């Protein structure tokens, strides 16, 4: 992944949008949305608001409801309950007005046509279209313009999808796992292209499996788990919530797990053989207490928690809570 570089990070982000005194009209507003498929609850009581200029990552394990949430946002599915507004109207109306561009994982491409023909079509269908040549240049597909769409590599296909999502002046761009099938350099190039869109003031919502992408690119991270929104904040806030530091050390002799459980600022504890792994929101205080107990830790390591671990910690906690409620 590229270095976070400039996070284009001056997005206006209201601290408390709940009171209705938001400074800018929201781009997307979900309120209490439920969606089930038969007995499966895909999305439960989902409420969220996106504001203009934000770059928002949607995270969640497989089956967390990310794709359903995006389908609902794009009007490809209708909610069972709750309201969804995009630019203050229904998703379908917002799309018909040419305000939303989307790149879907499941979005196929028209076959038996060239890349240029397909991009030309997408531009033609857009009420606020860009010139096809510009769109292709921005997506980096000018050289493969004469290639047949069904003869592309996975990464090239993703670039063509991206071109379709940016065929006109969209105010919101929705990307579902946009870099799937791309190698590292293609991924870097992709996000560089994406930043150019963000710099033009677009709002971007992307679902991803690559947590480092969310960490490096998003102003704000939403974590979905079993159809519920369990975290909403900056990557730093999410890491802090999960317990900011990870402490690892070995102990000689029998490890007294109960004793370790009394340590201050403990967020998580895992003992495997002689190895103790601790998550703490104040590593200094926790380690001070470890020495205070008269223990002598060896091979001590203290590291910051990556978003990946933070994400796992949060989703594990949510799973445990869910199990406890049953």
């Amino acid at each position, binding site marked *: 992944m590229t270095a976070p570089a400039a996070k284009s990070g001056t997005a206006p982000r209201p601290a408390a949008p709940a009171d209705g005194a938001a400074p800018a009209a929201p781009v997307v507003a979900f309120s209490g949305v439920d969606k089930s498929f038969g007995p499966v609850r895909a999305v439960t009581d989902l409420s969220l608001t996106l504001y203009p200029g934000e770059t928002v990552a949607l995270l969640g394990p497989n089956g967390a409801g990310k794709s359903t949430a995006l389908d609902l946002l794009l009007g490809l599915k209708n909610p069972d309950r709750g309201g969804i507004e995009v630019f203050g109207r229904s998703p379908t109306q917002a799309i018909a007005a040419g305000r939303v561009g989307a790149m879907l994982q499941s979005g196929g*491409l028209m*076959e038996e046509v060239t890349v240029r023909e397909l991009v*030309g079509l997408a531009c033609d269908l857009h009420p606020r279209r860009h010139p096809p040549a510009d769109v292709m240049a921005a997506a980096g597909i000018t050289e493969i313009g004469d290639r047949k769409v069904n003869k592309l590599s996975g990464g090239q296909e993703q670039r063509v999808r991206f071109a379709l999502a940016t065929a006109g002046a969209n105010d919101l761009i929705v990307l579902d796992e946009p870099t799937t099938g791309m190698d590292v350099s293609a991924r870097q190039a992709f996000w560089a292209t994406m930043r150019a869109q963000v710099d033009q003031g677009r709002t971007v919502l992307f679902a991803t499996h690559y947590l480092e992408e969310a960490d490096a690119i998003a102003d704000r991270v939403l974590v979905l788990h079993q159809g519920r929104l369990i975290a909403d904040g900056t990557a730093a806030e999410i890491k802090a919530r999960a317990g900011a530091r990870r402490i690892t050390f070995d102990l000689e002799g029998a490890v007294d797990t109960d004793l370790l459980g009394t340590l201050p600022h403990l967020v998580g504890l895992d003992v495997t053989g002689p190895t103790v792994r601790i998550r703490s929101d104040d590593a200094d205080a926790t380690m001070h207490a470890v020495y205070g107990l008269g223990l002598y830790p060896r091979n001590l390591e203290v590291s910051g928690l990556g978003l990946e671990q933070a994400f796992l910690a949060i989703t594990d906690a949510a799973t445990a809570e869910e199990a406890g409620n049953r």
Partner: protein
Amino acid sequence: MKTLVKLEITRTLRNRKFMFFSVLYPAMLFLGISLTYKSGATAGDTGLSALAYLMTSMAAFGAMTAVLMGNAERIAREREKGWVRQLRLTALPGRGYVTAKIASAATVSLPSILIVLILGATVKDVHLKAWQWAGIGVATWAGSLVFAALGVAIGYLATADAARPISMIFYFGLAILGGLWTPLYLFPHWLQTMAGYLPAAPYAALGRSIELGNAPHAKDVTVLAVYLLLFAGAAAWLYRKDTRKA
């Protein structure tokens, strides 16, 4: 939307195998069946020669082949691959997609109609006035839009695997009940009456009426127009409402 129509037609023309069979099949059938006819045979009490009767039936049947076979399946496959999902994220209205699909189907049906008519005029010695030839061509082509719309609707209703058998059932069922294979005048009376309200019999009757030197019957045109609205409306509605795995 013009671009979409153009692109759909281009795609169809590029699919040479499909074009080849759709165009040749009705022509071969026409030649084959006509071999079994005695020279000078007449078509029951219709006032037409058996050959002239067969020619319009086969032109109609050929157009149905071109627009129904393959088209529904291709649409169902496009849905499953997610292209239609992508298309629904554009400002394209439902009728735009349906129009483009019908237009591309019509590109295939025109040559298949023309070949049957050319064979009739040259090889089979069917004699008609110039306006009649033109009229039959235009009427048969225009009527094929009804079945093209049916193909689009089936493509929307069925999965890719089911689309082929379903369109086969409609294709053969409508062709047989419409008297395209067995002449209508051999049907029992009640069946003839029923056939008049199904799309294929009024369809073939357009050309036959012109062969007799008349304009197509208003009733036939009305029945076809109603089916066209029904099928195209259903297709457009299904396009927008397709909230399953489309």
